[in-house]
């Protein structure tokens, strides 16, 4: 049985397998696109509802969550880049957190198809690379704006000298680890669900329990933790970009 399971896993669970379409000669992962749009719409809809019901009196629970997250992001941002905070930076951290969280939560709804019709879009490197690209462009922009040519120059003049290659290497490793960490964790969550689904029929009650427990763990713990880590590291990289060498 182990051999056959391994065979199925090898055949069915592979990264980069998506519903695709060719548009003007370009390949589009349609499932990633519409699930990310769905997550985005949900985030915006929730934001709109919170704003519509928002009050300066006793806030609703969702308003409390939105306020708490925005305040927490602001605190981290101020700690990282100081008090001269660009106005778009807190919204960036806030949007990353909620968008990634909702993307991750889509793993809760399996369609049972192969490939899944509603996969978490964060299990596609196209999305994680896209988010990372926005983050990298933003922190490089802020770093250059604050430090000018020293933003790059500092990498080569840092002391002790051993730090110099590490700093240069970080420019590649940080974005890669940021995007692949998110991708790996969410993709692994999907693999776990697939493995549970592959359990034989006579283990159906066990499989159903495993499925539920794993989803609870995945959505309740891993999804928010990964969303938090991505946002937090983003803010941290902004801090690295503007910090002065002493």
């Amino acid at each position, binding site marked *: 049985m182990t051999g056959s399971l391994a065979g199925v896993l090898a055949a069915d669970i592979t990264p980069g397998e998506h519903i695709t379409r060719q548009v003007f000669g370009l390949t589009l992962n349609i499932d990633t696109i519409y699930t990310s749009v769905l997550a985005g719409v949900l985030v915006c809809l929730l934001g709109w509802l919170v704003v519509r019901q928002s009050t*300066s009196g006793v806030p609703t629970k969702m308003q409390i969550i939105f306020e708490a997250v925005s305040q927490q992001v602001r605190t981290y941002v101020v700690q990282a880049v100081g008090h001269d905070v660009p106005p778009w930076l807190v919204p960036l951290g806030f*949007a990353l957190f909620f968008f990634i969280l909702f993307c991750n939560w889509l793993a809760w709804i399996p369609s049972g198809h192969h490939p899944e*019709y509603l996969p978490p879009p964060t299990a596609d490197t196209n999305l994680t690379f896209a988010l990372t690209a926005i983050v990298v462009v933003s922190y490089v922009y802020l770093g250059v704006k604050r430090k000018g040519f020293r933003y790059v120059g500092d990498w080569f003049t840092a002391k002790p000298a051993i730090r110099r290659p590490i700093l240069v290497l970080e420019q590649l490793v940080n974005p890669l680890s940021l995007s692949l960490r998110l991708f790996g964790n969410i993709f692994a969550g999907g693999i776990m669900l697939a493995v549970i689904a592959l359990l034989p029929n006579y283990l159906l009650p066990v499989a159903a329990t495993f499925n539920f427990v794993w989803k609870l763990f995945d959505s309740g713990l891993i999804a928010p933790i990964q969303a938090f880590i991505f946002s937090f590291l983003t803010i941290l990289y902004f801090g690295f970009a503007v910090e002065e060498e002493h």
Partner: protein
Amino acid sequence: MSPTALLAAPATQTEKTNNFLIPNATFIVEVLVFLVILWFLYKKVLPRIYAMLEARLETIRLQFEEAKKARESAEKAQKEYTDALAETRKEISRLREEAQSEGAQILEEYRQRAQREFEERMQALDERLATERLQVMMALRNELGELAFTLSEKIVRDSLREDERQRKLVDDFIAGVGATVHVEAEATS
């Protein structure tokens, strides 16, 4: 292409990319999708959240200030009450001391007045006694003179025969009576 058509796409349209680490055109779409979400949250959601937060903070600040003012007012009233109480106690103490002092003064005055009256009365009594004594002395002397006269008359009539002896007896008697009156007058004064 509709979502239904997409979902109903045949398996042959799923594609396994050569390397999942190499992004395709989806990357550009995802960048745009996220930028739209970021714009919406940045422009439409967060400003309102911040405005509500600011308004709530302002309300809390005002309530805090009001509470602070109320506390200060209560503290001021408490201080005024304490001060008034202390002042009243001081006033009561002062009045008590004044009353005690006045009482002592009045007592002293009455005592002095009583002493003075006593002395005046005593003096008046002494004077009256002296006058009365003098009157008694005078009356006694007159009466004694009459008695002496009567006695001498008896003696003269009775014993003319012992002329010399009788005269001596009368003189001794008169001298004896005068000395007794003199001693009594000295004792009275």
